[in-house]
């Protein structure tokens, strides 16, 4: 029987996919949000996590970029 699940399709580069997978792995079982890892650049996740992923990615990027202090 065919099962339909509503979700969010994420397309990103390889490192970011790994970042999201790592994020998911760090969460307790009940909060895991990845439904399916499709391939190395595509993920299928719960529909409500877009904001959370976005802010986590933004924070990660901030850590890795340098701004000249004044």
């Amino acid at each position, binding site marked *: 029987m065919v099962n339909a699940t509503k979700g969010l399709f994420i397309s990103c580069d390889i490192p970011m996919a*790994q970042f999201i997978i790592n994020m998911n792995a760090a969460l307790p079982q009940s909060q895991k949000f990845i439904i399916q890892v499709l391939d190395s650049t595509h993920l299928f996740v719960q529909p409500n996590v877009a904001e959370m992923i976005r802010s986590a990615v933004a924070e990660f990027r901030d850590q890795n970029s340098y701004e000249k202090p004044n």
Partner: protein
Amino acid sequence: MGHGEKGRPHKKHKSSAKEEQRSTFVEDDDGYFGDEVDDDLRDGEGKKRDFSKLELKPDHANRPLWACADGRIFLETFSPLYKQAYDFLIAIAEPVCRPESMHEYNLTPHSLYAAVSVGLETETIIAVLNKLSKTKLPKEMIDFIHGSTANYGKVKLVLKKNRYFVESPFPEVLKNLLKDEVISRARITSEGLQGNDGFTISKSMGEMGNSHDGLLNEAELAAAAEEKETHSFEIDPSQVENVKQRCLPNALNYPMLEEYDFRNDTVNPDLDMELKPQAQPRPYQEKSLSKMFGNGRARSGIIVLPCGAGKSLVGVSAASRIKKSCLCLATNAVSVDQWAFQFKLWSTIREDQICRFTSDSKERFRGNAGVVVTTYNMVAFGGKRSEESEKIIEEIRNREWGLLLMDEVHVVPAHMFRKVISITKSHCKLGLTATLVREDERITDLNFLIGPKLYEANWLDLVKGGFIANVQCAEVWCPMTKEFFAEYLKKENSKKKQALYVMNPNKFRACEFLIRFHEQQRGDKIIVFADNLFALTEYAMKLRKPMIYGATSHVERTKILEAFKTSRDVNTIFLSKVGDNSIDIPEANVIIQISSHAGSRRQEAQRLGRILRAKGKLQDRMAGGKEEYNAFFYSLVSTDTQEMYYSTKRQQFLIDQGYSFKVITSLPPPDSGPDLSYHRLEDQLSLLSKVLSAGDDAVGLEQLEEDADDIALHKGRRSMGSMSAMSGANGMVYMEYRTGRKLAGQGQIKSNKPKDPAKRHFLFKRRYG
């Protein structure tokens, strides 16, 4: 400019306590005219960004610079007056940022102190600045210049017969100084010689004809000179530095003048040396020397020239102008040899007048004047010496040196400097460096340890003049592979992060591609830099190239460098950070940097300096010539990792010098496939497991003894990494054995090794764990 500038945060010269306030400035850009008025009143900084009050002169288009009330000065480099304005500004202000068309400078008390010490007078500074400025000089700036320079030149520090004296024609000033606790404690009161207020008064010290313009005849001159009285008191040689510091603008504000009247020094024997006729100093070298010898005397200070621009010739010229005994300090044995060679190359000094003093070659000092070349470590070394070197150091200590020549002053930690300077007595100190930046902000110490900055060359001008190579800088972005990045993100690998991003297979492939391209297509000579020893060995082994790191012996180093210079087959060498400073490899013209010392701006600049020596024909190198760029600097960076942060930070110094970094994202080209290593997934995975199984110690950074600029490193740094650590023979046996015994004996551990049982070798876990 006014509008574009307003969101721009201010310069650092204000206290850091204002830092937070400033950040709020940046945020409420919109409330510029409203809320901020309060802020303006509170700290008086607000005017900085409101330039509407500046009065524009009618002929402003012909004038090259903008002077702002906060001490910042902007110079248009396209102005016809640029050259003159630049020479003037570099003397009175600190360069902040020097890109191609617009330079930014900052007036600070230190820079003004340097200005007056090279002979510029307060009124001249203001008059010239006013002449060059497009706007009327703000009153604040004039007051600032007056305030910073008024007291200059009233006090002198003089070395006479191995004793230090503070001298001044004004007894009140000396009394003022003595009110200070530090200075009065440093004073040595000599018996008998005391005048009525305790100062030694000498009558013959008058300034010969300084204020007489040579109009008086000799008899009158002599009379005038005799009338002048100089008051002085002696101070403890070990306290000289503290006294000098107390006299700086931020304390008592009587900056001390240190000049050496070497022509009239009859006490110290002359050294017979001249520059050889073929030694032709370039214009900027002449200029820096003229700053040093401005009025026929020698001033102490620092000269800043980019690497490869001929610092040694400046040093040798200075020594041969003073013609007294000279002590030359370098950072390591290799550069000691190079300095000795430079002295013989450029000057007529005789073989027996120059000697090297290192742990390998202890040449005794003969005759009554000469040049001694040694390292900072040898002089500052505190432990027990051999009898032979004890004798030499005693001689160095007892001698009055005409010139103390200090190479690479930026690398020497302050405490070692103090020691060196307290041990050696010199009339004049000259510091040479390419990069006056340190991550630990200890640069300001140099101001009182050596003296003000006398000259700083503009890198881009030297490039344009063809004196140094025109370097194309590039940052190569290498994406992390899936497997490496997954490991990078794992918490348990936090200590291996560096190893993971350095060993990123994509980075390796990019490096291999670049080496091949430059070796085969252009016939270039390549240096690959890696701070991470694990990466250094992995890369060098895999690519079958020679490498040099801290533990490589002097003999082997020389052999490898020789092969690199002469052989057609050795075109690439791998260097750890031992190669950062002073290893002279003039043949190299490509640098590939695969890992680095966190965010150290100095290291980046020093590494670039390895390829700055100009090569090839001048006309080819000029813009539009055959080879506009003849040197290449690649920094390989793994994207999405900490390395991106460090990389940007490291580039700041070079960017301030006007260099720009080009970002390359498509290296190696996608079609390179199996030509390069680590194409297959299995290879990548085995590399990954190698990295993961290496001990935390082994993947860390190399630590060199002379390295002290380590504030730049971030907290989670590992301490030691050496070749033997990789082979498993880490000296662990010895270390553990010893500490084990101590444990049993006294229950106390004194070792610099971490004692975490989890880190112990598994063989020993059973025994001690």
